[in-house]
């Protein structure tokens, strides 16, 4: 199963490499990874999505907790949560393809953020499967480049991950 693990950690040099190192060292897979400082500049928030059975994911959270720089860890997928990912996608757009792309883009509530006579760059925000769906919906439009931010997530309701 796919899990979204959120990690609050000291914003210090080397902290990120410890997390990434842990994943490769223990043979855990990383689907995506995002990291940025929080409102408290001494803390970073890292979100990693991974695929594994319950036992593996339990080990991952335990091993992450063991890292000295890590303050807190939560597996967001255990409860109600919201996940978002940003994608920017550059497409060949000329002739009738322009209208077609525009339509698909509207259906998915994407925005065209850059235009040239032959290309469109579309920005789309949503859960990862929505982004995947958009890509397949593009059908014959030819994709020149895709950038995805990786997933970030937050629990619904009162629950927070903080000190």
């Amino acid at each position, binding site marked *: 199963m796919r899990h979204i693990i959120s990690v609050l950690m000291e914003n210090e040099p*080397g902290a990120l*490499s*410890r997390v990434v190192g842990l994943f490769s060292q223990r043979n855990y897979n990383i689907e995506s990874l995002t990291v940025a400082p929080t409102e408290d500049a001494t803390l970073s928030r890292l979100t990693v999505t991974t695929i594994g059975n319950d*036992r593996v994911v339990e*080990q991952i959270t*335990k091993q992450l907790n*063991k890292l*000295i720089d890590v*303050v807190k860890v939560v597996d967001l997928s255990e409860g109600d949560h919201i996940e978002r990912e940003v994608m920017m996608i550059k497409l060949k757009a000329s002739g009738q393809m322009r209208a077609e792309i525009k339509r698909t883009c509207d259906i998915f509530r994407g925005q065209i953020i850059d235009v040239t006579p032959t290309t469109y760059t579309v920005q789309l925000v949503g859960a990862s499967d929505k982004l995947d769906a958009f890509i397949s919906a593009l059908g014959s439009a030819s994709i020149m480049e895709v950038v995805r931010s990786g997933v970030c997530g937050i629990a619904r309701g009162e629950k927070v991950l903080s*000190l």
Partner: protein
Amino acid sequence: MVVRALKDEGVQYIYGYPGGSLLHVYDALFQQEDVQHILVRHEQAATHMADAYARATGKAGVALVTSGPGATNAVTGIATAFMDSIPMVVITGQVMSHLIGEDAFQETDMLGISRPVVKHNFSVQRPEDIPAIVRKAFHIAESGRPGPVVIDLPKDMTTPTERYPYEYPKQVKMRSYTPITRGHTGQIKKATDLLLNAKRPVIYSGGGVIMGDASEQLTELARLLNFPVTNTLMGLGGYPGTDRQFIGMLGMHGSYEANMAMHHADLILAVGARFDDRVTNATDKFCPTAKIVHIDIDPASISKTVQADIPIVGPAKVVLDEMAQLVKNSKKQPDADALKAWWQQIDEWRQRHGGRYRTDDSELMKPQQVIEMLSLVTNGDAFVTSDVGQHQMFAAQYYKFNKPNRWINSGGLGTMGFGLPAAMGVKMNFPDADVACVTGEGSIQMNIQELSTCKQYDLPVKILCLNNQSLGMVRQWQDMNYESRHSQSYMQSLPDFVKLVESYGHVGMKVDKYSDLEGAMREAFALKDRLVFMDIAVDPFEHVYPMQVPRGSMRDMWLTKTERT
């Protein structure tokens, strides 16, 4: 600042080797007398000495090595300590901070190299941080699940002409690191109920009981309950080896009775042990009828390879104590009838195969006999360090450890070359104790240069080299799995060890016959102030048994070259 912080930490000895990036530190060492530096002959030995000090005392040992090759030479020792959860602080020199990343002379990314084999590492970025970093390093190394910590120290952090405010912190507070100090009472109650209802219980204890200073509590609980106790390789001495309730080591080379008891148990109380693959054999066949209570200070050790029914996260010492209190105050008593039957069964297993090896008519010694003699000559009271191989297993099986922290070996990494420096680290700190290093002619040559350090610091350890003229453990596997194709497992061109040690200024003895063994060994131990190297010829064809059958259950074992369960 570095030396002063070490002094304030109460460090007496540090083990190391100088080099360019550490010259400021070495100069500071020269100008004081509180922290004594021991000069080894290879940095790996410095880390093993520090490590063995920690294994014998529970406190973090300290090693100091220069940047580049000094640091990389130390990596094996750091990994050795890491795998066995041993507290250690290793200070590695580093090039000037403005040169880092430029492939400067003797630069290596020690933070990167050490990362997978340390509990934590620090890089000093401001000299005024040194006291706090040193304090944190010791705190992290020694608390919770212990482990090695590296402090990478760029040369410009130690410039002697610059002065900084110095204050050694008394306490450490880290929001991201709070070791657990006690177990969950509800879980402990549940577990105690299970213990009192058990019909075929086994206590399986490991290195966590040794390093967690919990053998007294373990012994008390086991005696209260009259349960059999087995120890892992790392847990030997956690329960007295000569006690009736002790059923030997378990696992790949565990005793017949320990492995049989584990397999048939209905309850396993695991304490400070990590269900290593050398213990469990195939996990899907592991102890099919047992409920498992697992006490460990590291939640990640619990249900990692084998699912625990009742996990208890906490220090063994505190948790076991709480359990013993509960047992004492409980109206319910252990099931005496069931235990009686269980003990009968165990004693039967013990009779059938307990600690058996065969001697033949030849005068050629069996390695097991040498260890039994060592046990006899030292009254089971010596510190015994070991290298890695068959001799290590024989030492584990045949030396009866009655006290914790006396059996010092590399279990998790299995580092050949560990034994001699480890013996030195112990002897340095326990000058009046008997310290024996059990080794093989293969392993001893991996750090034999340390005989010179022994001379310099007058470290009269006793080295027992079980010389089977082969990499015995490798050869055994080749005999069993590769139709005796002995690929590269012979030790050819062995030196004359007696002459070799004499050239270092020590005493050498060669023993070829069992009839000479006792006399020679007594003589060696009587030479209190001399290092004695005993080159003991043993049967090169001997195998270590029992040996679990690969991918089998706990009870699937080879008992001799021809018999299996």
